[in-house]
């Protein structure tokens, strides 16, 4: 097929853009952002064309330099990869459009670097999604990880240290993955995913294979911040600049989940997943409880990310079609929700000058549209229909019921109540404790009740994403039947 190089094109456009963004930025300072957005939209176009082709004529494969696997590196664009590519490039494009005005205010001198790194991050993430080779996956993993370390380091005065901790833990995660890969490679002699899936049943139950799978899952767990391994995430998200958090938080950890899904599909869902389900269930509850005790808005959202990764991992490791659909739908929903929440948080920090939850009084009067978008995302997080979050949780609960795992059903339901608690604190402070003139500390700060919204491009992208949350909720039946159901592997 002449057009089968489409899967390669998606990460390649980003790699090329990472090179040209600094060049354009050095000639005209303002040019770096439009170029990054254009590259992201071009890649989104490729992803959409690929999505359409995958669902009409089946999986696309591209052999790098014409070498057939298992000798050469293969790029596979199957339904799951197509869904992820559209999600990554779509959310990425909207966040990059959003980041224009706020980057001028928060990271003025570092804009060119920011957009170049954002391109490298997206190149790594989309590369991980389309590759069909386990070592190539490691290389893309490290490209995206190194870009995100640098992106996190652009932030307030605490950012370099939190980025350093992220770097050390992220590198250990990658080393665990590589060590596990060494075990699998030594037993099967191949690095191609399809080839390895064929070889592993022949050598299954050997201790080397089991050790390899456990190490790889441990590495993926570190990268996706699964509960006991999450310590790097809250600091990294809290101290990074608003545009960097809005870019990394929705899509960064999801791709590590994708890596775990791929490895589990290759290895045929080994028995270890039962243990991971329990870890994920504990993570859901623990992440929610930790989120309740936070006073900083961004930090609270970061802990809620930890809890939501728990939902997704639980859905994947329950290993039945309903739970898997729930997990993929929740990846989609959570990316949209977290993008809206962090984009709104960026705007709030920009206009209110604080992220302390107890200082948010008067928010609905000052920024009514942002608050509306924020509320839609909150409803989706808690799981109120017709937002998307409700339907992904329903699928997860049905999946857990099908597996007769009543403890996990209880965990999801309890965490919904906990979700309500920590988001209600924000609503409580912002709506029901209105700003009064008699508050001397606030008066000194010179704050007014005047309406002061985010700039139009930031507002528009936030609203598009929050509309997408509702659309995903309303059309979830079509979405599942047309797309996600066809990405479900055989269990």
């Amino acid at each position: 097929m002449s057009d089968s190089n489409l899967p390669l094109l998606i990460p390649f456009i980003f790699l090329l853009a990472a090179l040209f963004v600094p060049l354009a930025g050095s000639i005209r300072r303002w040019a770096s952002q439009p170029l990054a957005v254009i590259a992201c939209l071009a890649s989104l176009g490729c992803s959409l064309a690929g999505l359409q082709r995958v669902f009409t004529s089946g999986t696309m494969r591209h052999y790098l330099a014409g070498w057939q696997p298992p000798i050469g590196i293969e790029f596979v664009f199957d339904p799951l990869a197509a869904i992820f590519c559209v999600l990554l490039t779509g959310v990425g494009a909207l966040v990059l459009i959003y980041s224009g005005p706020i980057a001028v205010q928060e990271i003025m001198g570092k804009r060119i670097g920011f957009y170049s790194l954002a391109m490298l991050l997206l190149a790594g993430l989309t590369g991980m999604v389309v590759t069909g080779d386990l070592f190539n996956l490691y290389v893309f993993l490290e490209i995206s990880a190194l870009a995100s370390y640098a992106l996190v380091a652009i932030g307030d005065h605490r950012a370099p240290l939190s980025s350093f901790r992220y770097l050390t833990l992220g590198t250990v995660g990658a080393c665990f993955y590589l060590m596990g890969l060494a075990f699998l490679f030594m037993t099967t002699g191949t690095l191609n995913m399809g080839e390895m899936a064929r070889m592993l049943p022949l050598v299954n139950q050997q201790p080397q294979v089991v050790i390899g799978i456990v190490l790889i899952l441990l590495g993926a767990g570190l990268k996706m911040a699964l509960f006991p391994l999450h310590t790097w995430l809250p600091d990294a998200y809290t101290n990074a600049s608003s545009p960097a958090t809005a870019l990394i938080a929705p899509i960064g950890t999801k791709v590590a989940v994708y890596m775990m899904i791929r490895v589990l599909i290759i290895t045929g869902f080994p028995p270890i997943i039962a243990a991971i389900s329990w870890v994920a269930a504990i993570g859901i509850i623990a992440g929610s409880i930790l989120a309740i005790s936070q006073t900083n808005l961004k930090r609270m959202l970061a802990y809620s990310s930890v809890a939501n990764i728990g939902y997704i991992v639980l859905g994947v490791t329950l290993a039945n079609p309903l739970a898997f659909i729930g997990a993929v739908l929740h990846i989609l929903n959570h990316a949209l929700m977290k993008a809206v929440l962090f984009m709104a948080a960026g705007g709030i920090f920009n206009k209110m000058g604080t992220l302390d939850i107890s200082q948010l009084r008067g928010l609905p009067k000052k920024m009514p549209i942002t608050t509306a978008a924020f509320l839609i995302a909150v409803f989706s997080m808690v799981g109120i229909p017709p937002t998307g979050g409700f339907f992904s949780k329903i699928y997860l609960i049905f999946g857990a019921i099908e597996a007769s795992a009543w403890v996990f059903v209880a965990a999801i339901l309890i965490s919904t109540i906990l979700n309500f608690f920590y988001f209600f604190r924000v609503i409580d402070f912002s709506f029901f404790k209105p700003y009064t003139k008699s508050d001397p500390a606030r008066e000194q700060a010179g704050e007014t009740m005047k309406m002061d919204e985010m700039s139009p491009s930031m507002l528009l992208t936030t609203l598009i994403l929050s509309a997408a949350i509702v659309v995903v909720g309303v059309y979830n039946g079509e979405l599942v039947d047309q797309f996600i159901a066809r990405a479900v592997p055989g269990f």
Partner: protein
Amino acid sequence: MTAFEFLQGYSAYILLVVVFAIGLYGMMMKQNLIKKIMGMSIVQSSVILFFIVSAYKEGATVSVLDPALGLENPDLYLNPLPHTLMLTAIVVAVVTLGVSFALVIMIHKRYKTLHEPTLLELMK
């Protein structure tokens, strides 16, 4: 297979797993950021050597065609794939080191110390 045979047969791998564990210890327990970087480097090196050891064969030569040996017996040549893979992994390791040193320089410029508990105290 007795325990002794196992230790003898897999001595190189066991040693590298021990090195991996030493690196992890350094990263977690040491309080100086430079020592943490050292630990990280040790972990990376152990994984790289793990791959290299897996390619080793007794009595084999480099994987370049030798007319005297011919092509009939592949046991006479080493497996070149792990070496080339690790070339990439070394590049990744070097870049990670570069980024981590850049971060350490930024931290030191601002706080004049690299002792982690002191840094956490200063950042409150």
